[in-house]
């Protein structure tokens, strides 16, 4: 089993740093590229939503991310302080609408659900936590 934890501020720079850490983790543990790419997209969706949602003025946004490879399962856990918010509760977007009627809102979290095998939201203490897993062997 391999595991790594990183804490970053809720900002575009923080998101970049987490993406780079996930790249290194995947490379070091020979995670297949299709799984790494799915994980990168999922991380970008979740983290950019957190940054966009913003935090109370004066309260520093903090994101804790852990990557874990246990046997054939990659687990990415994103935790952050802030008001309770379950992104999974959002209605799936209409992916068959025409060019003019197409909306991008909700597309990100929809991609996360589709790209990962399992996505679970939990409220732990004062933190929101999103746990995402994907098997690397199929």
């Amino acid at each position, binding site marked *: 089993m391999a595991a790594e934890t990183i804490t970053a501020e809720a900002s*575009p720079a923080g998101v970049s740093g987490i993406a780079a850490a996930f790249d290194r983790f995947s490379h070091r543990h020979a995670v297949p590229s299709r799984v790494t790419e799915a994980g990168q997209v999922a991380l970008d969706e979740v983290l950019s939503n957190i940054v966009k949602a913003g935090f109370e003025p004066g309260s520093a946004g903090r994101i804790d991310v852990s990557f874990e490879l246990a046997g054939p399962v990659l687990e990415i856990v994103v935790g952050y302080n802030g008001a309770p918010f379950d992104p999974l509760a959002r209605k799936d977007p209409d992916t068959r609408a025409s060019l003019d009627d197409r909306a991008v809102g909700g597309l*990100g979290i*929809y991609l996360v659900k589709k790209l990962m095998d399992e996505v679970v939201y939990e409220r732990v203490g004062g933190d929101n936590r999103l746990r995402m897993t994907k098997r690397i062997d199929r």
Partner: protein
Amino acid sequence: MSLEVREDRREAGLLVSPVGRIDSNTSGELERVLLARAAEPRLVVDLSGVEYVSSAGLRVFLMLARKVKAAGGRLALCSLPASVKQVFDLAGFTTLFTVEPSVEQALQRVSS
């Protein structure tokens, strides 16, 4: 972590090739370059050098398609790597775009 956007003016149309990852950090740069080219009558975007695309990038492609359509131009995307194709398919974007397997076929498509 960055994105480079190359441009190549061909006889059949303008070829734009983003190279790198298209995510929340880099989509602004892609938006800046691509939307400035939306008035091109024949535009091809070669995605062969793209590592992955998140919804921030999909938003840019959607805006581009609308602008090209409004300007009466023709747009084709080509050479989507597997992970990019998967995201386009999941989002239902493959049906919104003309997608070709190679640069040559895409250039032919916009110029025929």
